[in-house]
């Protein structure tokens, strides 16, 4: 593994090793760039993962204190845990469920398509599906997405059998085991899926794509990656002209360290990325780095989610096998007759007993609740994931008083449900229940959103510098050698799980950085 000097200003520093940062690191290393990859968390491996929900949560999740505000129920149920993301090498690709869907053409043109939704800060992306399609194709191949590149779909588990039968009985047309970055056959030196049932706890078979054991070791093999785990970025610094010069970070012993850089790429997920820019305020950038638009931290999106669980009078054992074992895509299409803008996917989901108890109705107690839990073996579940509306006031901001272990302000995450989100969620609950009722559910349960794993939009792409933080390459409007390389750059959320789009944008960004470097523009 490479180790570059802290004064080596020819390196690219990437902050965050998840879907965006980990992929970008590998792409750049293969193009000949020297990369320092800062990761706040420790390095685990499939050997150190455990099939244990609470253990894995403590091992992998980002647990640094955050605060919340707004009308979303997460603020009440999990006031210090707005997001369920990871602090570990590989980032949230260690935890993700692996659904790999392309955004649809109209979703890149949300403002044009949905027109002027009251209270929403909608904007069209500065790129189209056609711009991203070749990169989607590369991302699908790179990460081994089923039902692409002649890779067969995964076999459906019991949870999927329920979904399939219910969905077809209510008239849904497109129901299958999904496009998943989980090997249905051995591929890329990784095994096929063992149906472990612990996708979210780190895949012990390695069948699920994660940058931890794909992009990162491949980048290390080039001899050009200097991965620094347990190194928490504190501030991006710049010279008098405003260009980024490097990153100040705290190492594993808490000591401040400094790495010079020719280019800095921020990929810390959509809470920490804007927080880092805001914490990098200086006399030149008084409101935070790359924030002349005032949009850093704003337009925080987390998808309109919710789950529907159903109890049957026969066994299901939903926890056996892949967590996101199947999908209904009919509701994802553009259809304005339902009373809301945007669409949603319906995807199976399961929780082990420990997390079912914690998440089915957070805060609930008493016999009504435990009588539901006693039906655990007969339970099936699905997750609703749909487009939520960007709002300028849904924002990641710096806490006015509270500081973290490094003495920097912690983030507050404010989120008010938009009426469009509420309408979509309620419709989704109704349709999810209908699917289960069609196969004889004894009871269906509408479950409120969990802490967010899909976090988007807080450093969004925009055509005009006044509307967002970065351009169509993720390059910040204000600082030409500073890039946003994660889901923060999403202009809108789409109705699909974001990972494939994050990876596609990272591949595209690497091509751009290489081309601009060749032209000596960077």
């Amino acid at each position, binding site marked *: 593994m490479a180790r570059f000097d802290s004064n080596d200003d020819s390196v690219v520093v990437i902050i965050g090793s998840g879907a965006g940062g980990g992929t970008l690191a590998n792409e750049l290393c293969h193009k000949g760039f020297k990369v320092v990859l800062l990761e706040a968390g420790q390095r685990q491996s499939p050997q150190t993962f*455990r*099939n*244990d*929900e*609470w253990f894995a949560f403590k091992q992998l999740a980002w647990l640094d204190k955050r605060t919340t505000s707004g009308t979303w129920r997460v603020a009440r149920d999990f006031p210090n845990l707005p997001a369920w993301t990871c602090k570990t090498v590989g980032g949230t690709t260690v935890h993700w469920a692996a659904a790999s869907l392309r955004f649809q053409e109209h979703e890149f043109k949300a403002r044009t398509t949905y027109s002027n939704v009251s209270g929403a800060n909608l904007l069209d992306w500065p790129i189209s599906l056609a711009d991203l399609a070749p990169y989607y194709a590369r991302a699908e191949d790179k990460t081994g997405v089923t039902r692409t590149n002649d890779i*067969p*779909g*995964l*076999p*459906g*588990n*019991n949870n*999927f*059998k*329920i979904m*399939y*039968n219910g969905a077809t009985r209510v008239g849904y047309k497109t*129901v*299958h*085991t999904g496009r998943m970055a989980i090997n*249905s*056959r051995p591929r890329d030196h990784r095994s*096929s*899926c*063992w*149906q*472990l*049932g*612990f996708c979210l706890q780190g895949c*012990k*078979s390695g069948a699920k794509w994660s940058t931890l054991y794909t992009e990162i070791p491949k980048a290390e093999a080039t001899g050009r990656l200097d991965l620094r785990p347990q190194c928490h970025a504190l501030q991006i610094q710049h010279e008098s002209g405003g260009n980024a010069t490097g990153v100040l970070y705290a190492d594993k012993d808490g000591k401040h360290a400094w790495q010079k850089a020719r280019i800095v790429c921020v990929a810390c997920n959509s809470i920490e990325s804007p927080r880092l820019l805001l914490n990098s305020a200086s006399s030149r950038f008084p409101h935070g780095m790359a924030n002349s638009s005032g949009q850093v931290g704003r337009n925080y999106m987390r998808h309109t989610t919710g789950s529907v669980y159903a109890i049957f009078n*026969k*066994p*299901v*054992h939903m*926890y*056996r*096998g892949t967590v996101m074992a*199947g999908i209904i895509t009919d509701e994802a299409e553009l259809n304005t007759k339902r009373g809301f803008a945007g669409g949603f996917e319906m995807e199976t989901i399961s929780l*082990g*007993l*420990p997390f*079912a*108890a*914690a998440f089915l109705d957070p*805060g609930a*107690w*008493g*016999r009504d*609740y*435990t009588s539901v*839990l*006693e039906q*655990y*073996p007969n339970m099936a579940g699905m997750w609703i994931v749909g487009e939520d509306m960007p709002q300028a006031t849904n924002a990641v901001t710096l806490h006015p008083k509270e500081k973290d272990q490094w003495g920097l302000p912690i983030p507050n995450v404010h989120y008010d449900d938009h009426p469009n989100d509420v309408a979509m969620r309620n419709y989704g609950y109704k349709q999810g229940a209908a699917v289960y009722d069609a*196969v004889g559910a004894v009871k269906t349960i509408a479950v409120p959103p969990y802490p967010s794993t899909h976090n988007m939009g807080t450093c969004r792409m925009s055509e005009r510098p006044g509307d967002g933080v970065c351009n169509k390459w993720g390059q910040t409007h204000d600082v030409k050698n500073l890039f946003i390389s994660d889901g923060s750059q999403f202009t809108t959320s789409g109705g699909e799980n974001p990972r494939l789009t994050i990876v596609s944008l990272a591949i595209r960004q690497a091509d751009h950085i290489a081309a601009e470097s060749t032209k000596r523009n960077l």
Partner: protein
Amino acid sequence: MKIKRREFLHKSAIVVAGVSAAAAGVTVAGFAAEWTARLKTLTAHEGDTLLKMARKIFPHDRLGDSYYIKTVADLDAEASSRPATAKMLSAGVANLDHSAKGKFVAQPDGEEIAALKTIQHTPFFEKVRSTEIVSLYNNQEVWKVFGYQGASYPFGGYLHHGFNDLNWLPEPPEAASPKPV
């Protein structure tokens, strides 16, 4: 040792008194004496009250007291290392007894739920509930009772252990759900 023995006797005496006064005994005197004696920081009365609370918060008739005692033991462990927790639990139990207009452990069925409802939005109640949700449901013995099999890696995953064994609905077509390798 002498101090421990005195504490043991002290706690046991209170528990026995408490239990004998309870109309619906959720604990057996001898058993209660044994487990409350192991508490490091909580008094026997606090332990007994928290045990009854734990049983009422997540009631499962098929689970014996030992599963719920783990919650009290976990609370006691935290109270032993964090004085703030010890203080909160002690004050919380006293407040609950006050709400119950007597001893919560002595309240008859039905009334104790009303007493808990009066305190359900307090940090004390939330402390007990949020501790219990892990202590009770993150227990492999409890998983067996609830039909949750947990870790599958030791036996190679559910691929050959029932991941698709549901047979009360038609099989989806192969286009939707290809056969396993």
